[in-house]
């Protein structure tokens, strides 16, 4: 609330010029000192109830609750609860956001909502609040607030709506399923009857002289009983591909649905399928198989839509039940190892803290670190081996080969990401080993150039690290030359030479104790 607005006679005339003359302002009522106009304002409001209507200037001090904001000042009926406001203290108060000391040049203001103190710059937002300083978008009045409060109001930092329509989809799907199931059942029944009948006929005539003559006749009779055939003159075009029948395109009846279809080789609307094949495909249907069903020569004509409805689901389920291809199996193993590596790396992240605490690392710690390191190297080599196996795999189709390359890309970046901590670990081990050496008395070996076991171990580790690095650098050179980045390749080549030098030095040092 403005001083000028409230008490024009006394405050405006004495207060404002005072601002320029002296640094302190005295309260006209109790003579308490305040730094600036703003503070005087709030002091007046608080201590002397100036926040009230001008008429009630002499009201007792309990009237500290009512306060208008600068924005809502015009509607003087609105009063905001300000019991939660932080009191400004000229010595200690800092802006809640930028932590600058609040003084006259920065100004100070309470966020009307959270009550914290801010400098003028960081309290420029507005929000609608009710009298209890709670957010109220409908009936509230505009009040000043800080950025945090403005952005925290419900719906302000919200984004990303989405709508799940799965249940609706499933409902729609299920409404059709019943119908479809019924049709399928009917079709299956016909199929089973037909198949069983044909098998029986074949069994009956097996080995008989007239078999080749009687079987087709009886099968033809049976076919007619399974499903009523659509009369020939009912159809002028194929039921499936809608092509018109003529001299070259003949009419055929599907033995399962009785509809008239063509037998064009292009569209494959109907096919003459050997009964043996049909029986084998329908492994999930109750067909009474007879012992020697293999030499049945009967074929029946079935349209493609019936084949689809009858066998699609079976085929789908059969394929689903098949074991994973080699590629996927390898990937599953890789991903389980990668999760092991990730957790190990996360573990290592904690380890340095322990190391830092005790300056002189003890033996057990070194042993543990070595153990961890060995475990990680093992996992990495397993991972690497699996990657190589995967690389050698012959993909079954184009998609698999694309997946293969994608997995390789991912694996190489995975190794790059997680190799680094391993390197740190090695560095730590080598730095710690000198201190642990005295505890493990060395047993000099006569024909090994006086190297202690510990030293041999050290050198071996170093050798291994260098070899690892050499391998990596070689790889990089290969890719660099492949991508024609010769400047990179030359830099890398130099590194390789240096690595080789060190490698030679170490191998000489180790002599016969090198790796076999």
């Amino acid at each position, binding site marked *: 609330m403005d001083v000028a607005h409230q008490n024009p006679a006394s405050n405006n005339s004495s207060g404002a010029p005072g601002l320029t003359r002296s640094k302190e302002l005295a309260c006209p009522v109790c003579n308490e000192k305040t730094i600036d106009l703003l503070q005087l304002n709030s002091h007046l409001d608080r201590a002397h109830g100036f926040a009230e209507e001008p008429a009630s200037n002499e009201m007792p001090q309990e009237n500290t609750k009512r306060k208008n904001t600068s924005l809502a000042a015009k509607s003087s009926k609105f009063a905001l609860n300000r019991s939660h406001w932080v009191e400004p203290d000229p010595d200690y108060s800092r802006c809640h956001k930028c932590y600058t000391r609040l003084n006259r040049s920065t100004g100070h203001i309470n966020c009307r909502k959270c009550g914290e103190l801010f400098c003028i*710059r960081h*309290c*420029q*937002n*507005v929000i*609608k609040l009710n009298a209890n300083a709670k957010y109220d978008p409908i009936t509230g009045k505009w009040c000043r607030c800080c*950025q945090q409060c*403005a952005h925290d*109001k*419900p*719906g*302000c930092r*919200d*984004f*990303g*709506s*989405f709508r*799940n*329509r*799965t249940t*609706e989809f*499933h409902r*729609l*799907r299920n409404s*059709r*399923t019943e119908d*479809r199931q019924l049709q399928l059942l009917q079709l299956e029944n016909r199929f089973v009857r037909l198949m069983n009948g044909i098998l029986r006929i074949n069994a009956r005539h097996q080995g008989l002289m007239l078999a080749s003559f009687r079987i087709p006749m009886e099968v033809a009779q049976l076919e007619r009983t399974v499903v009523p055939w659509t009369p020939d003159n009912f159809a002028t075009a194929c039921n499936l591909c809608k092509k018109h029948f003529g001299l070259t395109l003949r009419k055929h009846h599907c033995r399962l649905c009785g509809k008239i279809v063509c037998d064009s080789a292009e569209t494959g609307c109907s096919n003459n399928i050997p009964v043996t094949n049909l029986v084998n495909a329908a492994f999930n249907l109750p067909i009474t198989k007879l012992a020697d069903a293999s030499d049945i020569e009967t074929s029946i004509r079935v349209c493609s839509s019936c084949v689809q409805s009858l066998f699609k*689901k079976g085929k*789908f389920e059969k*394929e*689903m*039940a*098949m074991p*994973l*291809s080699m590629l*996927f199996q390898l*990937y*599953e193993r890789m*991903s389980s190892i990668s999760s092991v590596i990730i957790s190990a790396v996360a573990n290592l992240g904690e380890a340095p803290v322990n190391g830092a605490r005790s300056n002189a690392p003890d033996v057990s710690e070194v042993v543990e670190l070595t153990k961890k390191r060995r475990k990680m190297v093992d996992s990495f080599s397993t991972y690497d081996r699996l990657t190589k196996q995967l690389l050698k795999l012959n993909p079954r189709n*184009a*998609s*698999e080969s*694309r*997946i293969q390359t*994608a*997995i390789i*890309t*991912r694996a190489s*970046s995975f190794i790059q990401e997680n190799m680094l901590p391993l*390197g740190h670990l090695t*560095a730590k081990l080598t730095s710690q080993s000198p201190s642990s050496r005295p505890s493990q008395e060395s047993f000099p070996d006569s024909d090994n150039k006086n190297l202690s076991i510990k030293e041999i171990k050290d050198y071996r580790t170093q050798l291994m690290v260098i070899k690892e*690095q050499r391998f*990596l*650098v070689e790889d990089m050179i290969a890719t660099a030359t492949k*991508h*024609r980045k010769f400047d*990179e390749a030359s830099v890398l080549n*130099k*590194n390789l030479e*240096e690595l080789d030098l060190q490698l030679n030095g170490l191998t000489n040092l180790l002599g016969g104790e090198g790796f076999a």
Partner: protein
Amino acid sequence: MNLFTAADFYINLITNSPSKGSRNAVAETRIRALLLDKHTTGTISMCTTQTALLEREIYLIDTLENENRDTMRHMKCVVYAKPTDESIELLRKELANPKYGEYQIFFNNTLTKAQLERLAESDELEVVNKVEEIFQDYQILNEDLFSLDLPSTELFTNQLIWDTSGLHKATQGLTSLLLSLKLKPQIRFQAGSRLASKLAQEVQHAVQQNERTLFDFPQIDAPPLLLILDRYRDPLTALLQPWTYQSMINEYLGIKRNVVDLSSVPEVEPSMQQVVLSSKQDPFFSDTMYLNFGELGDKVKHYVSSYKEKTNTNSQINTIEDIKQFIGKYPEFRKLSGNVSKHMAIVGELDRQLQQKHIWEVSELEQNISSDPGNSQNYEELIKVLSNPEISNYFKVKLACIYSLKNPGAARTSEISKLLEQQMSAEEVNFLHHFNSLFQTRTSSSPSGREREDLISELAKKFNQKNHPKADNVFMQHVPDLFTFLNDLSRNKIPDEKFPFLETPASRSPAQDVIIFFVGGATFEEARIIHQFNKTISEENDGKIRVILGGTSIVNTNEFMDYCRNSGRKSTDISDLL
């Protein structure tokens, strides 16, 4: 209101969606396939990378359109498509003969009931276990810039009238943006523009239709604002040669879906034929995209020298420790080297084109004409440039257009066209007259059009002096109209007569979230202004206003000239006006 955060949220939703677990399969793999259609391929590629998808165990990315996909029964498949009839048909085919074991389907906009039914009908094997709508039917270019990627030629039957399907597409795109940011806005549009007011009505209708189901966001004290502007109301901004990095790339090289095609650049390396520029993934680009060419030169120089420094330290490798460091930094180093040569190639090519096309001269004159139209010195300069045989006809016509736009009805126009006739075909000269009729009828048809324009340029000049102390840069004198609007916005004094409400709200409140949408295409220059506005507001005004810019597309001068050439050619049908 960062578009990329919304995009990340959606990508996360798609790729991390938990699956029910297969119903009957013994074996299953974690590897998943992602199927996209031609629309979502662009959307996805602009807000994520393949590496990020690989991390989510998506190892196979393919399109619905591709019919030769192999059957991979053990894989689960995530489909992300736009609910067009074409994509639905493709999906139906896929579901009738599923190639994968299990499907989760996401759409980037609302799906009609009929479409859902058709999908349900073809899912005989019950392989679908999720259908979800997310709202991302737009492309994200910067964190505060989006495009619907609808070229103007498809949108309008005539310069004044929306094509029905174009209007539908634009409405859908804009609605999906509102949903993805969870905004239920008050809508304002540019006064006197039929295109803007029509779209405003359509969007309002779409919002009201879905009020209960989708737009049921908590009421907010300061309702967000959607402002729909008309490109044809500020043709000048789209005509002037741009000078900031991102807009220059769009002008001289073209950038589509974050891909810059450098294949036409002479002596370009084979690996650089197509490069990807994304403000999200390339920190150097995100630093420099709003800088002008001069500042950019300094930055690139600095970038190259810092790169050289790094290579030098790398060449001095003596100890194992150095090698270890080198190897640790190597991927970063390789990435940096690729990035440096990419930006070098682009900046080099820009510079070459600027020289070759005499852009420095042309642009200076353009800017002078647009900021000081009456000056006779500019006219003399114009005549000089128009008679220069080295400058291409395209720029001459454009200059003439700019001149006549700023000096409407001046007698000199006929002199200019005479001068042009000596050098080029009648058809090209005709464009000047076509252009004039297009924009003069425009300004005269709307009440007090001329007057308002003067007011705007006057204001713009004022703010130019006040807020741009460095406006002495001759190449960036012109201030787009958008700037004036932003000034009004920051003072919460948007004039009602210029930008009327579709439904005048009961009480006025300061806008906090603002979407500005250009019918007919926004420009990257305007994107820069928006970016600077957002930055200033967040630094100096405590972030009390957040603005996002969008357009039916992003235009460069060439595309805009083409639109002008094609618009108004067809005669207006009466039914269009009803």
